[in-house]
């Protein structure tokens, strides 16, 4: 019943629209939310959007996952492994930065009691 959704062009359109809407949600959060945890959440959402966009636009529904086994030996029928490898790397890096950011935020809160990024202005004098 929804067969028309399986055409490659349609899938690519869905992925583009979906991932960009997700990116929009993240960007909106980044621009308007002030709480530090919300900012980190927004950044995580934006990152997910990029990951989904990349994998979604580079895959081909006709092809299989790039793993050779007894039934799949033809490389011509496999999906591109590079985007997957890149996103694997990017996910881990994003998590590392997130953990570090949270530890900064916790220590900062311990010292000053502030969690809103627009009140973080110890400097200016």
């Amino acid at each position, binding site marked *: 019943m929804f067969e028309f959704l399986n055409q490659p062009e349609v899938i690519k359109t869905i992925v583009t629209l979906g991932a960009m809407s997700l990116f929009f949600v993240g960007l909106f959060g980044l621009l308007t939310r002030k709480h530090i945890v919300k900012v980190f959440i927004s950044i995580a959402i934006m990152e997910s959007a990029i990951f989904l966009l990349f994998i979604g636009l580079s895959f081909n529904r006709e092809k299989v996952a790039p793993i050779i086994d007894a039934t799949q030996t033809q490389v011509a029928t496999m999906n591109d492994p590079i985007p997957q490898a890149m996103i694997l790397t990017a996910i881990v890096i994003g998590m590392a930065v997130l953990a570090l950011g949270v530890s900064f935020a916790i*220590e900062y809160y311990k010292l000053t009691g502030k969690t809103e*990024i627009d009140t973080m202005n110890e400097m200016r004098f």
Partner: protein
Amino acid sequence: MSSTLFIALPLLFGFATPLLSRLGKNALAYTSVLMQLSLLGLALSLLLAHSSTTVELISIAAPLGISFVLSTASLLMVLLFTLLMTLFSLYYLFQRRANAYANESKFFTLLNMLLAASIGLVLSSDIFNIYVFFEIAGISAYILSAYSKTALALESGLKYLLTGAVASIFLLFAIVLIYLHVGSLNLAVIAEQFQLLPYNVKLLISLLLLIGFGFKVEVFPLNFWVTDVYQGSTSLVNALFSGIVVKAYLFVFFHILYLFLSQGEFTLFLLYLGGVSMLVAEVAGLRQTNLKRLFAYSSLGQVALIFVAFAMQNIQAVQAAFFIVIAHSLAKFMLFLALASLEKTEQNMHIDRLKQIDSPFLMVMMFLAMLSLLGIPLFVGFVGKFLLLKSLAVEGMLTLLVMVVVASFIEAIYYFKLMGYMLHKGTRSEKVEVSLGEKMIFVSLGLSLLLLGVFPMSIAGFLQNAAEVLLDQTAYITLLVGG
């Protein structure tokens, strides 16, 4: 010899830190300096060998896998970074007894990771590999910025981290689009095929790359975080930020720009962006009373000057850019180290305290550095500014010429104010002790500023060669992709 060593050795050192710190209190510090010295020796021997551009493969052949390209231009940057990092480590060793960092082994790890990442940014020819090094350099810089764990330091670290995370998202977005449309990550292959893309896609990728790198190369609307970070971090670490990290990002951004982004209107836009950020930074610097913040604004202005020079895209201007890079790195390094020596008693100096301090040696050294930054003849800063102005005049870009002159004039106002404070007659109460080792480092930095300024011809040929190599797109493509 292998260019991979420049990256792999500091990484190995970083990973092995816990092992080395077992060996004794000083073993780690000395091995770190020793390793940096040997890297410096390697870079110098490569310089003297006058070898042509070499490609170092990782695992598989060039267009498919990652490779490192060591050309005259990247060798220049590698040499600069290793030299500055070695001097930094030596300086740290000399003043260590007085005020060592807490958890010293972690500090050394971060320094070496920063060195590895900066060199990796300069050498790598694969855009995703550049993203990874971008992150390593960023993440070590965040921690170095927050290292002292005071409220100020943590705030600056947090701001640095947030802007850096946003920047890396945009950079990753650009890389994703490049791979989807070009089908490769190798800079040479991208350079070959980028011009065939539709105009809008090219524009989008250029803008995303500009946003991604713009945070890091500190151009105008995206540099709001810089001064806060400089103010929150210690002066010691600021020396690294303005001497090494920014320069690595600038180099890689313009390397990418020359390879495939350079189109008429986009570069013109970049030129004026640089001009505007220069003016804004200098004007905002005028009313600063905190020394660190003042130097941060001056740093922004100088980095924008380098930005303009690189964006000119001709050999003379790029040669001038290299001159300013060297001059600014050495001079700012000196200023921030001097500030670190002065700040042993108190962080965040007000400029009035310059009147109180009794240390003729440091005053002379800061004086030298400021003169070079202002572009007074006989200093290397003059050579760079002069060449840039000449090239702007030859190209007939009068607006930019006026912008550069006005910015230099404004910069002169506040530096002369500082010099006036330093020459202020009156009782000077605060004595600052400077050890012999520290003095040697300051003297060597100051002498190199003077010597390069008096004999600019000694390196002009090398810098011109570097500029030619950096601008030569076809040679790079032939080297990596083959005829």
